[in-house]
């Protein structure tokens, strides 16, 4: 038995190149045992490639990948104790649901009787027992998704890889499956590595998120960390909505930076590492951390005028322009409490940045 501090998957300076094209630049990251880990990024950022490298479908050009401490590059996919839930599920169309789920168990050397028994239990777990004798084509998308999950979990892999498994489902079903997957991961204690381009999905389900872009790791952290303390402009912009303001640092005192925004506005914010007086940087403020009021607040507010209110159900999004400066987006909850903070278009208002909500980004 490996001790609990050994990472489930350890990626050390792994790179992937196809001829001249670099899909993944030298990347290192450790995925802990029993963790729900998400690789998040836009199309073509290399997240699926990285997953396929762990599964064994892509060679590692440089560096190494360790699974519970042992190097796996020389092992073919069928010798790696990891299973994959494919994006299009890849259920074997000529086999019944039961045969699909017991396939991996039989290939592991279990007798057909044992394999079918365990497969039956897995189908019970995903509540599909009555469909055991059907063919995949006779099931709905959501049911096929659960079969794919049961099939990948049946051989008790040490790591489960999920390649955007929810992307083909409609919104309601996707939300339900997110919760179900999270519970399943808790119950089984298997390490899940989940690939998605949907930031909300990543925030909802993950213990930790690795944000990727252009084959590089942008930030690694817990959901709240990544959302509230983005490390750079890409992460701030990709995860959630944000206001990115170009600012000039006019002063730094007591670890607080004074930021000058076009139009003569001043915003105070925590000086992050590498910030120095006189440089220009970007300030990221989430729309829900901005407050509108008719009179200026004590801690200092910015003058602005309302351009438009957009009703989005749970919230009201207000577009406004800072006097002589850039545009801002403010989100106010659609409630009696929030209604006092919504103003008609054309109104002159004051905007206040919640204490500690602004984040200074130097790249």
């Amino acid at each position, binding site marked *: 038995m490996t001790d609990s501090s050994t990472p489930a998957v350890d990626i050390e300076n792994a790179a992937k190149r196809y001829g001249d094209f670099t899909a993944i630049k030298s990347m290192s990251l450790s995925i802990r045992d029993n963790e729900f880990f998400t690789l998040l990024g836009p*199309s073509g950022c290399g997240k699926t490639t990285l997953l396929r490298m762990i599964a064994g479908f892509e060679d590692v050009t440089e560096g190494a990948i360790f699974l519970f401490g042992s190097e796996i590059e020389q092992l073919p*996919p069928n010798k790696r104790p990891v299973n*994959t839930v494919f*994006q*299009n599920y*890849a259920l*074997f*169309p000529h086999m019944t649901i039961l045969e699909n789920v017991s396939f991996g168990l039989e290939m592991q050397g279990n007798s057909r009787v044992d394999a079918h028994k365990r497969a039956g239990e897995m189908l019970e777990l995903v509540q599909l027992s009555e469909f055991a004798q059907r063919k995949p084509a006779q099931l709905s*998308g959501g049911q096929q998704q659960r079969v794919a999950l049961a099939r990948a979990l049946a051989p008790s892999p040490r790591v489960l890889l999920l390649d955007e498994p929810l992307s083909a489902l409609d919104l309601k079903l996707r939300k339900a499956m997110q919760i179900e997957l999270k519970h399943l991961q808790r119950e089984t204690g298997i390490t899940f590595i989940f690939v998605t381009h949907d930031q909300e999905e990543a925030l909802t389900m993950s213990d930790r998120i690795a944000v990727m872009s252009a084959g590089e790791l942008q930030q690694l952290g817990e959901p709240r960390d990544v959302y509230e303390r983005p490390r750079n402009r890409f992460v701030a912009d990709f995860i959630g909505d944000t206001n990115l303001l170009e600012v000039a640092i006019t002063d730094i005192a007591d670890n607080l930076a004074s930021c000058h925004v076009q139009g003569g506005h001043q915003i105070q914010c925590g000086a992050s590492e590498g910030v120095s007086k006189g440089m220009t940087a970007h300030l990221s403020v989430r729309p829900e951390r901005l407050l509108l009021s008719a009179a200026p607040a004590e801690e200092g507010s910015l003058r602005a005028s309302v351009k438009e209110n957009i009703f989005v159900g749970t919230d009201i999004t207000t577009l406004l322009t800072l006097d002589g400066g850039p545009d801002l987006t403010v989100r106010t909850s659609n409630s009696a409490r929030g209604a006092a903070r919504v103003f008609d278009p054309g109104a002159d208002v004051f905007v206040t940045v919640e204490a500690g909500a602004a984040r200074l980004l130097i790249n």
Partner: protein
Amino acid sequence: MSAKTDVKAYRGFFTVTLICLFVLYAPLIVVTVYSFNDSLSITVWQGVSLRWYADVFTGVESAKFKTAAFNSFSIALIAATVSTLIAIASATALVRAGRFRLRLPSMGLIMLPIMVPEIVLAVATLIFFNSIGFTRGYLTILVAHISFCIPFAFLPIQARMQGIEDTYEQAAMDLYASRAQAFRRVLLPLMVPGIISGFLLAFIVSLDDFIITNFVKGAGVETLPTAIFGSVKQGIKPNIMAISTMLLAVSVIFVAVSYLAAKWDNTKSHLKTDPAR
């Protein structure tokens, strides 16, 4: 497509269709109808009868036809089986091995027997057998048939294989199947429709072949087409029409089954890949 722009709305569409159908099928219909003619003449109609079908099996030429039929069907069976096996291997290599050097030339080489005029192939095969001192007979026909049947078996199998996403094999290997197990348990069953179609096509092409067979067959060894040809040289008798009609029926059945098999889709379960990825 609107009915106004449909090709069916073109002037003369119906006439052209009729002419095409007539040119294609009139000879076959004549042969089929006259095979039931109760007459010694092939042109004078004297009422319906099955006497020429009986003549094929019991008449003076029946022994010759029986041997020829046995040769034809046994050669077609073996040639179709062997060429299908070769075609499965070639299709697997050409579709599943990714890009490799000489992939296109390999494809061309497999397809060559379809492109080359049959007479050239026949002469070349004959010269080849002569130069290596292979005595002409049943075996030379069989070898020649295996070689020219390969592209016909290859086409439907390759088309089928291209339609099978490689994620199925990846899923199998991900679930601890070796390469061989993934091929046998997953890829091969999914290819079955293509294999059936390819086999039947090869079978019918072999059964039907005259030119190459006529060149490479030894003295005294006949297949149905060469036997019919030999018989016709001494004047066309109605029993030839009966035999032709039976061959036509076999062909129609095989081609129909081959077509249906190629259309049969046993992979219809996967979802379309999400375009958002």
